């Protein structure tokens, strides 16, 4: 028995067909595509999709892992709030293991801080209702995908008149990050595998500048193996036959206009920050969301004393270069040696959507096969440039 919406996008025969089509369309040219979204990075490794691509088609991992782009200083702030007496600090499980400059939230919890992991911001609201003598703080992270549920929670907290609930808002927006990557010197991308989940909220038009100003294709893509391969086919067709534009491979979910209701509650509750620090990308203007002044009493940054300091990443950590697609995860000196999923130094090694964690958990074997191929002198000459995805 097959599972609808899952198995129909995982048929091996379809994969073989798509894979052959990619080989045919790319005609041996080197093509470098960035998957913006961490969900894609995870899917690519989970399914071993790199094995289905010809060596000349390379996938580069982008900045779309929400856990990975939170700068260390914000984790320090989160730790400070979590350690405040009387606080219940509610967070998504992924954030528990991200290192701050002094341990992680998991360590803070073992130390006595009341840190709970939750699946939805509404769970945090329930915690607030059930613990009226405690201050419940929700650690809000994520792109436009998760921001609307934070917004809806905020509206409900206001309507219920809860006064022991607040939000530590770290929501970021994807477009400025893509623009920062396109503007960075040495950018060598040929196209984008566009973020499927974010697009369900913001729609297609915010991506138009990529084709218009930078002449690059972007295809909004679903998360099953066939989606990703089909998207590569669509990008290659644009590169071959033109015109370069925004295309929607994920039309079964993404509507061209996005989700208007979600955007409305977002703008009702949140506003753009003048600037925000992204791990590895530095400060990007108008790239993150803060609560509007009307919601100040729900704003944890105003309710609690947070250090609000910029903390430089550990020297050995090259998450920044990884997030910009400048280096492959394994090219970081500490990758797989000092920095592993059990002992992460950088955030990219924590989240299952992080390029380093995905690479370490799933990709090591293909790395080893490449290493073997390179160790044999004959094959170096015949191989040409290595494909390292």
């Amino acid at each position, binding site marked *: *028995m097959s*599972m609808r919406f*899952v198995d129909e996008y*995982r048929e*091996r025969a379809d*994969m*073989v067909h798509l894979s052959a089509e990619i080989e045919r369309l790319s005609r041996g040219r080197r093509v470098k595509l960035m998957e913006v979204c961490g969900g894609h990075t*995870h899917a690519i*490794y*989970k*399914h*071993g*999709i*790199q*094995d*289905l691509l010809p060596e000349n088609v390379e996938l580069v991992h982008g900045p779309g892992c929400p856990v990975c782009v939170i700068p260390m200083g914000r984790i320090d702030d989160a730790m400070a709030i979590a350690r405040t007496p009387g606080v219940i600090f509610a967070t998504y*499980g992924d954030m*528990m*293991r991200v290192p701050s400059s002094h341990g992680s939230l*998991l*360590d803070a*919890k*073992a*130390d006595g801080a009341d840190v709970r992991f*939750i*699946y939805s911001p509404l*769970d945090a609201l329930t915690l607030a209702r059930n613990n009226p003598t405690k201050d419940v703080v929700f650690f809000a992270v994520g792109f436009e995908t998760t921001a609307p549920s934070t917004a809806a929670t905020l509206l409900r907290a206001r309507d219920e008149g809860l006064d022991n609930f607040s939000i530590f808002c770290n929501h970021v927006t994807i477009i400025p990050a893509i623009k920062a990557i396109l503007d960075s010197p040495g950018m060598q991308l040929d196209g984008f595998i566009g973020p499927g989940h974010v697009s369900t909220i913001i729609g297609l038009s915010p991506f138009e500048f990529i084709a218009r100003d930078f002449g690059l294709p972007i295809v909004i893509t679903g998360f099953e*193996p*066939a989606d990703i391969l089909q998207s590569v086919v669509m990008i290659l067709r644009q590169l071959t036959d033109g015109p370069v534009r925004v295309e929607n491979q994920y039309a079964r979910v993404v509507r061209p206009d996005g989700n208007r209701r979600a955007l409305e509650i977002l703008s009702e509750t949140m506003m753009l920050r003048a600037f925000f620090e992204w791990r590895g990308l530095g400060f990007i203007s108008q790239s993150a969301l803060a609560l509007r002044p009307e919601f100040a009493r729900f704003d944890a940054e105003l309710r609690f004393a947070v250090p609000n300091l910029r903390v430089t990443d550990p020297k050995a950590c090259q998450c920044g270069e990884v997030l910009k697609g400048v280096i*492959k995860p*394994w*090219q970081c*000196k500490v*990758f*797989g*040696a*000092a920095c*592993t*999923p*059990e*002992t992460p130094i950088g955030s990219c090694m924590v989240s*299952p959507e992080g390029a380093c964690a995905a690479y370490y*958990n*799933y*990709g*090591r*074997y*293909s*790395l*080893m096969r*490449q*290493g073997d191929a*390179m*160790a044999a002198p004959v094959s*170096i000459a015949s191989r040409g*440039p*290595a494909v*390292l995805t």
Partner: protein
Amino acid sequence: MSSRIESSLPVQLGRMERARVVRDGEPRLRDTHITLSHGSGGKSSHALIESLILPAFRNPLLDGVADAAVFHAGQGNGRIAMTTDSYVVSPLFFPGGDIGKLAVHGTINDLAVAGARPLALSVGLILEEGLDMEILRRVIASMAEAASSAGVPVVTGDTKVVHRGKADQLFVNTTGVGIVEDSVRLGVDTIQPGDAVLVSGYIGDHGMAVMLAREALELEANIESDSAPLHTLVAALLAAAPNTRTIKDPTRGGVATTLNEIASRARVAIAIEEESVPVRQAVRGACEILGLDPLHIANEGKLVAIVPRAESEAALAALRAHPLGRDAAVVGNVQVDPAGMVLLRTGVGGSRVLDMLVGDPLPRIC
């Protein structure tokens, strides 16, 4: 840029391999406090056990780190197997089982996968002040029923009560002893390249049933724990495939963690075909939604067996002929390279490393 990459890949692989050998050889415990990951059954648990606990008690029986210790007692035939396990599952009751049934089955299974015929159990209870007597009554009745239908009596026990808040309702410890016939020779050191890897049925049922029983998820699916005593299934397997190399029950950390432990101890590679691993639709669906891998989800009524290729058909037939092994499957085989690793051939035809569980999707699953 590509020439720089090509020259440094072997260097980086060497660095990773050295780090891996160091980690595998002598797991380092860097943490200053116990965190929940130390109880996950994954890598942190291993580091804790191997670097803090085992060294203190070092002896040849313990060093095998098997599910049960197996040793000679006196001059008679057969060896004694002994094991212990504590149960802290939350919630206490979940579809398909409860903490009491789990505590009986879990310990029977640790004996069973050591090749032992379970003889007797002890039960230790830690009760929180204020626990509803009706809850205790239900748990005890369930333990009694599980023990009697498995044919393994509870022969001794202990009860302690702690102040409110010092335990969460009720914790259970069970210890079990059994007899291993002299003919049974299980051990990862007997594993050979070419051996077949079998699982006895649908995986991930227990862990997913407990996860979904926690209301926080608000995900409804019809999944029941597979909690079951495996000793008769093991006996059937050993009768059909007497040269079975090793048997494990893939509890915390799931089949993936169990296979990694086997690959690491036997210094072999294990290759798994994702498509041949039996997973129920509902479990797969819940895993898709939660972003989990069924291979990392706990089981309480399944076994993983490594069997010589020549006996794999007989082993599979024997498992399938038993009510607890109807959906058994051969899921992969043992290879030489890369030693210590588990590889997965994915459904779409790619391949990847299948690692142990890191972190914990949800603690207190058993």
